């Protein structure tokens, strides 16, 4: 009688432990699934916002060179900057979620940063920020097989009636004074000094 009571007790413990394990496993799977969902959501949004960065950049290209367009250019820069910051924020979040971030994410951020840098360079305003963005973009894409500026873009960029499929060509045409190139040189020098 006593033995059977012990057996029953043991089996009920086992059942409880099993259900606890099952619950933990279920939580684990659900947690992982929700993390994956967040990741994929963020990735989709990053892509979407990168396209918005491109849209704003192209819209700036379409602005006429008139005195009325000066304030509009500044406003466009701020909108472009806002979208770039959001892409950066999403990337930082992804970096926190994952142990390592995919090169694809880094390329998205790098491209967004380069567009912002180019917009600043073209208007001759905020060159310091342009340099920072450009440097950061190159650092982010350091590990990719082809540097981000030489990669074929996943979309076409229209500027001054021309179609660009690589950022390098766009930079060549738009950064006539080689501001971005000089940024890199000056940063190398500063790095060498100490």
């Amino acid at each position: 009688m006593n033995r059977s009571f012990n057996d029953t007790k043991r089996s009920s413990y086992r059942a409880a432990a099993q259900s606890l394990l099952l619950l933990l496993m279920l939580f684990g799977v659900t947690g992982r699934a929700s993390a994956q969902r967040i990741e994929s959501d963020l990735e989709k949004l990053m892509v979407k916002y990168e396209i918005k960065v491109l849209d704003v950049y192209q819209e700036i290209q379409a602005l006429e060179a008139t005195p009325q367009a000066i304030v509009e250019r500044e406003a466009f820069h701020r909108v472009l900057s806002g979208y770039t910051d959001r892409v950066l924020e999403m990337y930082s979040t992804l970096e926190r979620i994952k142990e390592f971030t995919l090169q694809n994410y880094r390329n998205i951020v790098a491209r967004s940063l380069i567009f912002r840098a180019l917009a600043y360079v073209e208007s001759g305003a905020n060159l310091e920020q342009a340099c920072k963005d450009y440097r950061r973009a190159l650092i982010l894409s350091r590990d990719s097989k082809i540097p981000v500026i030489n990669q074929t873009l996943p979309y076409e960029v229209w500027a001054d009636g021309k179609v660009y499929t690589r950022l390098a060509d766009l930079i060549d045409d738009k950064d006539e004074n080689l501001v971005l190139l000089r940024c890199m040189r000056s940063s190398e020098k500063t790095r060498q000094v100490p």
Partner: protein
Amino acid sequence: MPRKWIITGLAGIALFAVSGLRAQSVGELFSQVKTAYEEQDHQQTVDLCTQIIRQCEQSYAEAECRYTNVMKTVYLYKGLSEFKLYGESEELDLLTEAINSLQKSYELYGDPNVAFNFGYMQTLRAIKLQEGAYLDGLVAAWDGILGMYADNEWQLDDELRNNLKIFIKQAVELTITPADSAYTTGRFTSFMVRLACDLAEQSSLSPDDKLFFDVYRKRATEDNFNLRGNEWRARGFAAEEQFIERPDDYTYRETRTNIELALRYAKSIERQVEMLKELTKVALFMEKNGDDRQAETELLYAREKAAQAYRLLVERRPNVTIKLENEIKKVYGNSIFRLVDYYFSLADSTDRLNAYYKARRVGEELLIPDRSGGWKQKFVWEGYEELYLRLADVGYETGDEEFAVDMIDKAWKAALKMNRVSQSRICSGIGQDKAANLIVFVDVYQQIARRFGLQTVLHWLRPIRKCLVAESSASSFDTTRK
């Protein structure tokens, strides 16, 4: 010694008074602010918040002054209450204060809702001050919208959709501020409207909302992203509808101003000719139906605008539809005809000959030489036979035989063409309406022929008239019998 006592006593009284009048603590004031705000006592809220801010500016500020949650709420309540007060008094200083307070609140705590609100207020102030180039408000409001969208897990709810609508309306209003001068190219506002529509269309929209966003997307895109021109065009058409219902001077001026602004900011030739045509239509309608019309002024205006539209049509060859082209020709022809008719009618009351010559000069604007040494109209338009007929009348009255005969002959042929009747088939049942229409032309033709002694023409016209009269009366007889 007593003096010392007196001084000590006075100091004591002063201290007592100061402690009595001592300001309440920030904590106490804050709870009063919350109550006042909930009770919608806006002035009280502003006063209490100002008192808190002043107390917090002192060197030994209380602990609450360092709490972000307290201070961001103080600035937020102050700003929102100032905005309510602005709504009551329309004093722009209050609006500026409200913007500053909300910006301060946003600096302390980056609530996207606050960013949207102060952005909205900044744009509102720009509109009130007629500063169409002030775009900071739109940028801040958009930043707020994106923040709210993210806060909402990138889903659109009703509040966000409403904010998008407010944003679009403000962007449109700002782009047409001030009405008569463009401070910007309008490209930025057009882009922002498209961005807002993109965002709104990511959710399922009610039919009304869908219509709203569709309309504004179209307005921001058409005519090379000409939001400014498109908005004036839409306002022009809306005013025109009202004008047609109630043709008074006010609605006429409003309609004309809106369409003239649409014309001024039109980017394409297509849009320009469309607006010129609309201006002609409106002026002609005013001349015909207006309560307070100045016939000659309106007709001269209509003629000028129609002539401009036609000139653009011929010289610049815009890519317009056949329908629009025909409408332009029709309003041009109509405005010339009506002006000719107007001067012709003046012959009764003023210098007769001068009125006829004026009418003829106006009519000649549409005439070009034809191959047989006469004159023909530059283009065929709906009703062109009437202009020939009126010019024939002018020729008759001024005694210009060649002109009168040429015009009445053209009028007769045009009338046959417009009625789709062949001259050889006049006597074989053309119908009462057509017969009645044609009799008028034959009558004038006969009159002219009689005046200038053209016997053979009379001989030719007599059987034609007879047939037309018979046709007209026979049809009416048939109709009566049925």
